[in-house]
């Protein structure tokens, strides 16, 4: 029954994203409109995919670091992506794909650095080291970014920060296809890790005794979740709160077994982000809010509500 509601909500959100927009198209014109096919549809699909990716990445990372406050961007990825984006603009790299590619490379670079830190001294990706390493790498990247911004021309870089705040204005069928080609592998890896992730919640030693290859599991989950997040940032900037709040919402409704949690987190994340994007496009029309701001504004009250439930139980 709950699944039916979820599927219905997904369809409703997609429909709303197609029907609603600043262009105020009459209903009859919609099927043939270039605005719907070239702008609204790829944008809605991309928002859904990115939201789903962030939801799954957040759920996996919370299980990996055994911390309910973990967010995909806690591991330094947003700092790395920001650095990549700003570097691309400061160096005037050519082509429309320079910005997303540079952001992706920056995010992956940050991931590799945190991974390396997590393995230092035989630590084996200890969650605390991952979190601290993520904060350190993120701060380091932010410092370099600030230095670049202060040395280079100001106006273009201000616009880079607007991009970084998150948005789907660059959505096109090309970006959708790239996501569709890229995402299934890390998503598949994470779904296959669903049961071992359930075991990991007991602790690393008990999980090993119940048959989980914990060493391999941690590496695989960290890499897959980070790669998903890096792709999300590359196409849409840094969108916070989705990866943090969606896993908790889904656990409230569906429990904590990852076999159910991961797919529902994908759908819920997709619904939330597609809805947030629709709001971002219409609330202050003709202007547009960056999506990251909408998710933060919506996410904070939801998070407060979840915290209350948490402390009550």
């Amino acid at each position: 029954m709950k699944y039916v509601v979820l599927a219905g909500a997904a369809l409703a959100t997609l429909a709303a994203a197609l029907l609603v927009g600043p262009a105020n198209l009459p209903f009859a014109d919609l099927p043939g409109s270039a605005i719907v096919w070239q702008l609204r549809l790829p944008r809605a699909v991309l928002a859904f995919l990115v939201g789903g990716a962030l939801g799954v990445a957040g759920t996996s990372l919370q299980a990996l670091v055994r911390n309910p406050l973990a967010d995909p961007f806690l591991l330094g990825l947003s700092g790395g992506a920001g650095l990549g984006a700003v570097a691309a603009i400061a160096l005037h790299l050519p082509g429309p794909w320079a910005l997303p590619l540079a952001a992706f490379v920056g995010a992956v670079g940050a991931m590799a650095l945190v991974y390396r830190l997590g393995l230092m001294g035989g630590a084996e990706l200890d969650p605390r080291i991952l979190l601290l390493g993520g904060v350190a790498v993120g701060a380091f990247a932010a410092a370099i970014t600030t230095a670049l911004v202060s040395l280079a021309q100001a106006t273009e870089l201000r616009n880079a920060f607007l991009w970084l705040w998150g948005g789907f204005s660059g959505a096109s069928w090309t970006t959708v296809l790239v996501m569709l080609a890229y995402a299934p592998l890390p998503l598949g890896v994470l779904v296959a890790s669903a049961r071992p992730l359930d075991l990991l919640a007991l602790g690393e030693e008990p999980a090993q005794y119940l048959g989980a290859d914990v060493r391999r599991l941690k590496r695989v989950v960290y890499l897959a979740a980070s790669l998903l997040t890096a792709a999300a940032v590359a196409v849409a900037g840094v969108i916070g709160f989705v990866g943090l709040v969606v896993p908790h919402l889904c656990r409230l409704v569906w429990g904590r077994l990852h076999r159910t949690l991961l797919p529902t987190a994908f759908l819920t994340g997709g619904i939330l982000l597609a809805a947030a994007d629709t709001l971002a496009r219409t609330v202050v029309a003709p202007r547009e809010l960056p999506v990251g701001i909408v998710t933060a504004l919506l996410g904070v009250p939801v998070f407060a509500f979840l915290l209350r439930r948490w402390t009550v139980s």
Partner: protein
Amino acid sequence: MRRWTVRTHLAGLVALAAVACARGEHAPAAGPAVTDDAGRRVALAVPARRIVSLLPSFTEILFAIGAGHRLVGRTAWCDYPPAALAVPSVGDGIPPNVEAVAARRPDLVVLYRSGQNATAAEQLERLGIRTVLLDLNRLEELAPAARRLGVLTGRTAAGDSLARAMDSLVSQSPESPTPSPVSLVFLVWDNPPIVIGAGSYLDRLAGLAGARNVFHDIAAPSAQVSIETIAARNPDFIAVLSDTAAPPRYAGRPEWRVVPAVRKRRFLFLPGGLFGRPGPRAREAVRELRRRLDTTP
């Protein structure tokens, strides 16, 4: 004894009065003085002789009112008129390099009013260098700037004359009002799309050139919109600030081609020096814009 006391007191009073009068002679009542846009009273003993300008538009104004030869420092961006290039550069000015400015030993530094520049101005004042902070975002702010720079350089008449020319530009109606004016959008960034709204210099130029900014309804000088909104409003032209005529990189992307003007490659490339900020060549900018609107297919 008492007479001696009285005489001493009297002498003291006379001395004090003399000092007071002497101070009065140095009072800025004789030298040029204005109130700048940060609310500060800027008073000079004599009209400025060694001026550093930290904005290209101020450099242009100073040359236009005949004070260009008094410039001892300019920013790297100040390239008009050509005579300005002979003035030594003190860096790009963002933020101002206080040491480089001070090294030119100016008696007046002209800055654009912003938070960063307010700090630089304060530092220069501590070094004993007078500074003036002026707004220059909108067309309407050209005239007050010209007037005040005229006062501070002793070229009051020239300053007033330039100001009057700017005022008349501001108050004039479009050159040839047409029933359906050409529409355009000023697009300064593509991802996310940032457009120019009402109250900005470019928007005013468009109006004076007889064109309609499709985002005139947005009160802010710049705003983020979606491609869909631009497509829905269907401007005839897309105006970009660019010194070259190369098509922007987003022109080939499929989602941008939903906008008819992108599809038909109807771009207006407006040189940054002339269109980027209000300056004495505003009238020329209007004419140039009108010309391009008429001649671009």
